[in-house]
């Protein structure tokens, strides 16, 4: 049985990985098996930092041969080391899953041997979990850079999602801070996995399909000098070229002292703004160029949609009873859910301001950008509009997007 000390070390080593989502897979259970996938994802608990626990997020080992500057587990760090065997991991997953503590496993590891050997043991673990322990719940596996391609592909047919973390938003930062990782060692496997996923989809392969929940990646924000504009350009390219499901942003936390790293963390607000902008790219039809020029950062005062609207006042106000969905989505304060409600409800009768309120559409910001049956409830005084759109002070904005939008979006579309 696994000791609590080991669990502690290997959990602490994995906890800054942001991704915890368990959505996107409909894996079915079979008789005698344990577990299935829930397409919408399920949160099993929430920690006092407000984050959701969905998966058992753990390292197989923290005993690393690599020396990434920002990582507490790097070779040159003086920390307690621990490793788990494939069976220990399987046992833990099965017993946590049975008790409904978790939705599945997020398995990652330090590179404790050659990349091939490390990947091999990760593969062995997920293979055992599926074939010996008959586990059908969700598995997210981190890919090891430089590892043998066929091993990676075999693992991809067993798990729901894989991620190669891009780590840093530019090649030069990667060279400086993660010398053993190269752009190629991260992007090539990503590309190969994308081909495998596309191939299976096009050929309607169901059995042992590669990565039904796709790929994600993560990068550290604020450990290196890239601007938000550069970061978002990179994300846009990753969504476009690699078909990633999500790009996660993790604001830099100075757990390690180093002359190559800033002494202070990036702060949650920057991370939050990036998630908001990312959201606009994926679901609201915005392009990076509209949201943030390449050499600039996002506004800290206004959320990206408000900032965009303030730069484009000539496009407003729009008439709530006529504006198409994609225009409604661009109104500050109107989210995907409200936009959907408006387009549905107005088929029954033209909507006025009071009805929008009754529908629980939040109008505090939106009222400056809309008319209802031709009537405008805002003001022409731009400085008044600006004050109303400010984020700080009134606490209307919640500083965490870890899981909430995913859920509300699911409610809207019914699937991923």
């Amino acid at each position: 049985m696994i000791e609590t000390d080991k669990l502690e070390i290997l959990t602490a080593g994995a906890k800054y990985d942001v991704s915890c989502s368990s959505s996107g897979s409909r894996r079915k259970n079979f008789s005698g098996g344990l577990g299935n996938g829930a397409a919408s994802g399920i949160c099993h608990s929430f920690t006092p930092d407000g984050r959701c626990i969905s998966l058992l997020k753990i390292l197989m080992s923290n005993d690393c041969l690599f020396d990434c500057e920002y990582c507490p587990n790097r070779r040159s760090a003086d920390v307690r080391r621990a490793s788990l065997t494939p069976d220990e991991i399987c046992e833990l997953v099965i017993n946590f899953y049975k008790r409904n503590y978790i939705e599945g496993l997020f398995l990652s590891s330090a590179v404790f041997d050659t990349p091939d050997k490390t990947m091999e043991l990760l593969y062995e673990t997920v293979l055992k979990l599926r074939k010996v322990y008959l586990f059908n719940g969700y598995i997210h596996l981190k890919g090891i850079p430089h590892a043998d391609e066929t091993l990676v592909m075999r693992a991809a047919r067993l798990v729901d999602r894989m991620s190669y973390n891009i780590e840093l938003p530019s090649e030069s930062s990667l060279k400086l801070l993660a010398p053993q990782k190269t752009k190629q060692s991260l992007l090539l496997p990503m590309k190969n996995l994308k081909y495998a996923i596309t191939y299976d989809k096009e050929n309607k392969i169901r059995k042992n399909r590669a990565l039904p929940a796709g790929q994600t990646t993560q990068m550290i924000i604020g450990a290196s000098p890239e601007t938000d504009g550069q970061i978002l350009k990179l994300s846009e390219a990753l969504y476009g070229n690699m078909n990633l499901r999500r790009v996660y942003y993790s604001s830099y936390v100075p757990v390690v002292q180093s002359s190559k790293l800033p002494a202070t963390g990036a702060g949650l607000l920057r991370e939050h703004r990036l998630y908001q902008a990312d959201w606009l790219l994926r679901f609201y039809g915005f392009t990076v160029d509209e949201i943030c020029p390449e050499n600039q950062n996002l506004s800290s005062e206004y959320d990206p949609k408000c900032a965009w609207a303030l730069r484009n006042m000539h496009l407003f106000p729009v008439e709530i009873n006529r504006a198409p969905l994609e225009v409604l989505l661009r109104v500050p304060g109107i989210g995907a859910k409200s936009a959907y409600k408006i387009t549905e409800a107005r088929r029954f009768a033209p909507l006025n301001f009071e009805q929008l309120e009754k529908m629980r559409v939040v109008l505090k910001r939106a009222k400056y950008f809309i008319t209802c049956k031709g009537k405008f409830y805002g003001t022409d005084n731009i400085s008044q509009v600006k004050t109303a759109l400010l984020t700080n002070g009134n606490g209307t904005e919640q500083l965490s997007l870890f899981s909430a939008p995913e859920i509300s979006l699911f409610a809207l579309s019914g699937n991923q």
Partner: protein
Amino acid sequence: MKIFITDNTSKCFFTAVYYAFAEKNCLITSDSALQPTFDDEIKLVETDEEKVARVIKKINSYDNSAAESINLILKSGDARKEQTAFEFIKKLIEYKRPIGTAYNLTEVVLFNELIYKITGEIHRIKGLLRFTECADGTLYAPYSPDNDITENLMPHFSARLGGQKFIIHDLKRKKAGICNGAEWIIYFADQAEIKLSENQKIFETLWKKYYKTINIEFRPHEKQMKNSMPVRYWKFLPEKHDL
């Protein structure tokens, strides 16, 4: 005002709807705590299959998915559930077409809000339910939900847990869903005596340790945690009790 009191079953509710249509001003409820006033007229409704069928047929003729939503809303823990459903049915019959997305109507907004609370709790409990392992391997999960959702949870867990025997026990309603590994039924169950398996304590301790370690201590966001996981559910969560 005329008050129709039902026995909290959906058939009795649909029977009440039949009678209520003949009234100008009335209320349907199964709320036993209701305090009638002096000029209220109380009518205890008895299920009448024929009337049930007629009402459902009428509803289906305008929207064949509405009956399902109405059955769901009747599982609400809210005392206004019958009246909310009745107001919704009246609107449906007035509009003669599906009105589920007529968000401009107050009746629809209120109806959807109660539905949302129930489906929201079902989704939440799929994550927050906690099983303990008994000595014979049966998994036992006590809980105390706001809405009567045990029937709605059983298919999810029986698909997921494969051949496992398990019990989901609603302590508030003294009601238990029992699955023998293949099929499940609902029982009325007051109390359960359970003997824990040898491993139960070990994995519970590991889980608590995990919960404690995965938290990022210098980024507290207590409010967010409580919004997502309201305090009333903590009683059954081992991780919210000391290590």
